[in-house]
């Protein structure tokens, strides 16, 4: 479990509040001391009132070390908590950003491979059209033209299939976006430690990851990929064979 969860955030926020309250208390005490202090003491003219004020100052100062010690402990505790948060954030954010980077690289690769597949298909289709034109008007090539037309249809159909990369790259981008949203949420949690009032209002700018990347209603496959489809289909066939032995 990391230290950036809501429980850790609340604990740290409470500590910060307590520290702030303690420091206010110290501040008030110091203010009181300043008010009580004589404006310009004359060595040889101490009045009874001034003597009484000095006695009161002495009494107030007795409680001050305790207050300062308490404030110091609370601030130390808050700082430790913040350090833990920072470490957790550093690791998780780094992981998520690496996922984002990997997914974006996959998108680039998938787009390139699909584009080459499409261009290859169109080249083959172009060659078939050229061959059809070459046999045009030749009565002896009628059968060959029939074959070429079928091949041309198949090539055009195959090109349509290559367009599946659009769906797959969309899923890869959604995966990358969900990783970025997670980093954003963690940053928002950390930021809220420094402004507890904001934490009360407290939503990250883009809301939850549920819409894009959360488990509920997730609209991308984490392992979506354009390449190695045959190998992955082989895995399916292997599982189907073992899961459902044919009788």
């Amino acid at each position, binding site marked *: 479990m990391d230290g950036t969860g809501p429980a850790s955030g609340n604990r740290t926020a409470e500590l910060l509040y307590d520290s702030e309250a303690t420091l206010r208390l110290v501040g008030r005490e110091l203010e009181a001391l300043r008010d009580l202090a004589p404006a310009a003491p004359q060595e040889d003219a101490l009045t009874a009132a001034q003597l009484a004020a000095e006695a009161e100052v002495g009494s107030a100062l007795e409680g001050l070390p305790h207050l300062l010690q308490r404030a110091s402990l609370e601030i130390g505790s808050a700082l430790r908590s913040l350090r833990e948060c920072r470490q957790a954030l550093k690791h998780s954010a780094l992981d998520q950003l690496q996922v984002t980077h990997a997914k974006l690289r996959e998108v680039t690769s998938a787009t390139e491979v699909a584009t080459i597949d499409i261009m290859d298909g169109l080249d083959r289709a172009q060659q078939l059209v050229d061959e059809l034109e070459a046999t045009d008007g030749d009565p002896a090539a009628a059968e060959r033209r029939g074959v070429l037309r079928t091949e041309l249809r198949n090539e055009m*159909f*195959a090109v*349509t*299939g*290559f*367009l*599946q*990369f*659009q*769906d*797959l790259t*969309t*899923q890869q981008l959604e995966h990358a976006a969900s990783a970025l949203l997670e980093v954003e949420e963690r940053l928002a949690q950390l930021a809220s430690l420094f402004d507890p009032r904001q934490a009360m209002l407290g939503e990250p700018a883009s809301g939850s990851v549920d819409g894009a990347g959360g488990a509920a*209603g*997730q*609209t*991308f*496959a*984490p*392992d*979506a*990929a*354009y390449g190695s*489809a045959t190998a*992955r*289909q082989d*895995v*399916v066939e292997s*599982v*189907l064979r073992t*899961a*459902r032995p044919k009788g």
Partner: protein
Amino acid sequence: MKFLVADDSATMRRIVVNSLNRLGYPDCVEAVDGRDALDKFDASIRMVITDWNMPNMSGTDLARALRARADGRQVPILMVTARSVREDIMAALEAGVSNYIVKPFTPQVLKEKIDALLEAPVAS
């Protein structure tokens, strides 16, 4: 013979429907997610082809919902998804999916799966 094609990607729906048309199945109903598919399903549907990851209702939830219906118990369900991890495939089968294709698929694989499903009795 009527097919129900569920996918939140308009591109994929079009590719699957085009493939079905080319394989000689012109009668296709399209659904944008599992819930839409469940609404559009009726006894006239001969096969359901569904994606896994969709908003509102996933493909596996759709399979479970169909298997819970009297008129959906026997319909072949073909999952077409980018998920290819062994555990996912097993989970889909447990949900009631009859067969499974990994995206991107070739028309040949789609044809083989459809032929097999139309020939075989449903094991649900």
